[in-house]
């Protein structure tokens, strides 16, 4: 513990920030300075950070593109929609099975057992398609998919050249939908150059799922407490664990957006009575649209961390105002907690006081702090790869967000209450009463308010800053993505990949928390990082004579 305390006092966040940007040309330094925030406790307000702005060309970024956010993140985990990528082969190839979202389609001989996630479909555009246009090839490819496997839905994804050459993918999709008759075909204008990061792709996916699928199935779904789980992607089986807990509590999950999801789940999502939002960044648009069109309120939840899971379950139960559910949730929590507490206590003897850094996603860098907290670890620096200001500062800043050239290009769809199916689940008075009892609807406070004073919050962290940060602050563990993993490991610092986990999981829910404690315990306590120096490097004297037996 003394060593750790020493490390803590060494930091001067102002000095660290200065060192992070010291090497940059002046223009870059000025821009980056606005995205590096030293957390300070302000009275009644949260400090402001710049986020969701362009990446600087040449600065090695963690970010991906709009296509990755749309096809890879949001639509990738849905098993029974054929994802047909319209473009040269690469985009489809790289998004093929690389994200570890699990799905369960059932055995081969069950009805509705479609699972296309192990497949990669592409129009493999060639030079002549770029020159003469690719619409005909796209239509032919849709027909070939249909003839081959008769899916119930085909999603078409645009890659960079598609937008540039002006292929009208939406018209092709609509025409093919009409021609095929029993196959819903829709398209996503998710060209990689749109927006400033994956985030734009999330928004585009949200819009099209809402426009083309949600509300398509009115066959009633059974269940007393019906919810949708929004922004959960079943990486490493996270969603399976959350569903296990829901089931145990008697909560019916109509649709997860989009881990382990199917077309029918999306189509029935309007039948839920509450939307529980996990990853606020990637899916809050759907939450808002479901509320406007169907009257379903949403509440922010977090199933990362055992206590956060318990809190989220209580929030859901409180929302339904049903004593039986409230009691059942308490029973489940009481049943699950002893194992978790025992694991945390055991692991905590080795992890308490250690430090972590998290640079992932639009929610994960916030959510996973819960797990580290449960292990007695402190997050000393964190930031998102593609979040917006509201994910840092809280949703109250949304009205003040500036619309710039990049965000203006991303479609905002106008949604109106559904003529026959709009039914507000709660009256304004009920909503107010809920808020009074601690269940705030449509509220997310963001990451900053939960982080300690003098921690560093850094948006769109890049290679250079990551290396410096690790060098200067020497965390016990660093969490980011696969591209960052091995440069950090080479420095002798354990690294946990928090996008797809690389291996392991689930880390969500109760059992997931225990998995995570053990994984982090393994990483921060392992002897394997002690071999970096050879014996002769530790004692390089050449004078000593060799001692023979």
């Amino acid at each position, binding site marked *: 513990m003394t060593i750790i305390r020493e490390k803590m006092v060494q930091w001067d966040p102002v000095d660290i920030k200065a060192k992070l940007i010291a090497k*940059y*040309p002046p223009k*870059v330094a000025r821009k980056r300075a606005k995205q590096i925030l030293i957390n300070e406790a302000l009275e009644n307000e949260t400090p402001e950070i710049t986020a969701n702005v*362009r*990446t*600087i*060309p*040449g*600065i*090695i*970024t963690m*970010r*991906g*593109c709009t*296509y*990755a956010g749309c096809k890879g993140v949001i639509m990738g985990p849905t098993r029974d929609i054929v994802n047909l990528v319209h*473009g*040269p*082969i*690469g*985009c*489809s*190839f*790289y998004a*093929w099975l*690389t994200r570890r979202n699990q799905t369960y389609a059932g055995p*081969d001989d069950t009805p509705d057992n479609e699972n296309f996630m*192990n*497949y*990669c479909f*592409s*129009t*493999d*555009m*060639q*030079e002549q398609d*770029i020159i003469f246009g690719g619409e005909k*090839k796209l239509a032919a*490819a849709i*027909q*070939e998919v249909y003839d*081959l496997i008769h899916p119930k839905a085909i999603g078409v994804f645009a*890659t*960079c*050249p598609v937008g*540039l*050459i002006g292929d009208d993918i939406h018209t092709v999709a609509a025409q093919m939908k009409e021609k095929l008759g029993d196959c819903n075909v829709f398209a996503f204008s998710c*060209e*990689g*150059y749109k927006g400033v990061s994956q985030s734009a792709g999330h928004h585009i996916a949200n819009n099209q799922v809402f426009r083309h699928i949600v509300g398509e199935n009115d066959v009633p779904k059974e269940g007393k407490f019906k919810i949708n789980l929004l922004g959960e992607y079943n990486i490493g089986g996270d969603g399976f664990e959350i569903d296990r807990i829901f089931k145990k509590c008697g909560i019916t999950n109509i649709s997860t957006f989009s881990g382990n999801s199917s077309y029918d789940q999306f189509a029935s999502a309007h039948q839920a009575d509450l939307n529980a939002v996990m990853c606020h960044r990637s899916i809050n648009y759907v939450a808002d649209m479901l509320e406007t069109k169907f009257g379903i309120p949403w509440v922010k939840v977090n199933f990362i961390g055992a206590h956060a899971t318990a809190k989220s379950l209580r929030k859901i139960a409180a929302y339904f105002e049903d004593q039986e559910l409230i009691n059942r949730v308490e029973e489940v929590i009481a049943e699950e907690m002893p194992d978790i507490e025992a694991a945390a206590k055991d692991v905590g003897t080795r992890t308490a006081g250690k430090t972590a850094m998290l640079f992932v996603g639009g929610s994960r860098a916030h959510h996973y702090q819960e797990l580290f907290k449960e292990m007695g670890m402190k997050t000393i620096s964190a930031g998102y790869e593609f979040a917006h200001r509201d994910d840092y500062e809280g949703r109250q800043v949304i009205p003040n967000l500036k619309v710039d050239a*990049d965000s203006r*290009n991303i479609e905002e769809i106008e949604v109106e209450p559904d003529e026959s199916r709009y039914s507000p689940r709660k009256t304004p008075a009920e909503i107010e009463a809920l808020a009074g009892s601690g269940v705030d609807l449509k509220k997310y406070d963001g990451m900053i308010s939960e982080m300690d004073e003098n921690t560093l919050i850094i948006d769109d962290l890049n290679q250079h800053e990551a*290396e410096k940060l690790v060098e200067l602050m020497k965390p016990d563990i660093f969490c980011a993505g*696969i591209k960052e993993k*091995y*440069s950090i*490991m*080479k*420095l*002798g610092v354990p690294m946990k990949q928090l996008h797809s986990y690389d291996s392991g999981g689930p880390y969500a829910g109760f059992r997931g928390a225990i998995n995570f404690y053990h994984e982090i315990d393994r990483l921060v306590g392992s002897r394997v990082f002690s071999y970096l120096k050879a014996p002769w490097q530790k004692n390089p004297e050449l004078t000593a004579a060799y001692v023979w037996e």
Partner: protein
Amino acid sequence: MLLRHTPKEVKERNALTVNPAKTCQPIGAMYAALGIHACLPHSHGSQGCCAYHRSTLTRHYKEPISAATSSFTEGASVFGGQANLLQAINNIFNVYEPEVIAVHTTCLSETIGDDLPQIRKKAINEGKIPEGKYVLGASTPSYAGSHVTGFSTMVKSMVEFSEKTGEKNGRVNIIPGWVEPCDMEEIKRMAELTGVKTIMFPDTSGVLNGPMTGEYKMFPDGGTTVAELKSTGDSIGTLALGEWCSAAAARELDKKCKVPCRVLDIPIGLAATDRFVDALRTIAGVSVADELAFERGQLVDMITDMHQYFFKKKVAVAGDPDQVIAMVEFLISIDMCPVYIVTGTPGKKFEKRIRELTDDLDYEVKIKVKGDLFLLHQWIKNEPVDLLICNSYGKYIAKDEDIPLLRWGFPILDRQGHQYFPTVGYKGGLRLLEKILNLLLDRKDRDAEESNFELVL
């Protein structure tokens, strides 16, 4: 079943690719550029391309892959990416201080018609390229060729460094093709044993199979240096290993500096390695080193000792042209039967070459150029094989059809060793045979009844 929607019946597809056996050009250019010492690859496109290539290479090598991007936005896509690239060049030389930036294009920058040579000229005129540093450019549109083409094009662009001083350097250029870092090491070792001094380019050994030392070097010690690349113009000759990956650069060097070249197959397997070693000894005018002859003997020993397990075993092979050609020749040489052969990379020469290799066989060989793994799977469903040789994506077919899989090629995302243990040369041949035998014999043991389960195989 993992691939439960793959029907047995093969229908011709004209517009749709399913489960590709290739990816796009830029990743090849990125891999090649990593083989130049202190070089930062740069992707001139939207940042997703760079992220995807870095992720795939990282997963394959379990090593850091540094590369930068022009981070195109919609504005840049409309007005051209010149401003982004100029800014990027300036930032890269200031922040990361590489010796070389190797820029490759993408479908985005190619479609809008960005002119790399012109942008580079502007960068030079504006003083954005420091004295003694270089910016290299390769045009690698994703909508033509494959990752193999991108590799070849970037290697060809390296010839730009070559200078002809008029004084020979006594070296032989070896262009190794798209092989693993350890393969490059092994090729250099064989040349050294034969007494041939070489310049290998590109050379990812020491770059993508680096050690763990507690120190992170964005630019590890390995890679072909700029001085070596300059000197390639003074070499005695060039051995290009692989028509698809290496020939273009060798011919360019011949054209530019009159360095004569020979295009050989990648030395995978006995015969291709023999030809490579024979070329080396002829160039050096020496006898083959005892050590190499000994290694050859060991390989032949293993082939003859275990021939009964190879004989008539049917194999499906998917991969890149240069590698597949060498592999097919090797398989035939040990009496295995490569019955299905697929590459995703277009090019008529491939089928012609495979036909030449397989012409006098007494069984049918199905070949698909610009084929995909979906078709390969359908063929297997119609007539099964004993072994599948493919990259990691083959595991879905292998599990469904219960066929042993030899992971081979790019990318390998679920096993380790490819960056450390070569498959080229005689030693590499031994390793391939060991792997094939392990797969076949593990299968034999697994399937044996108690009564015929045997200790000695």
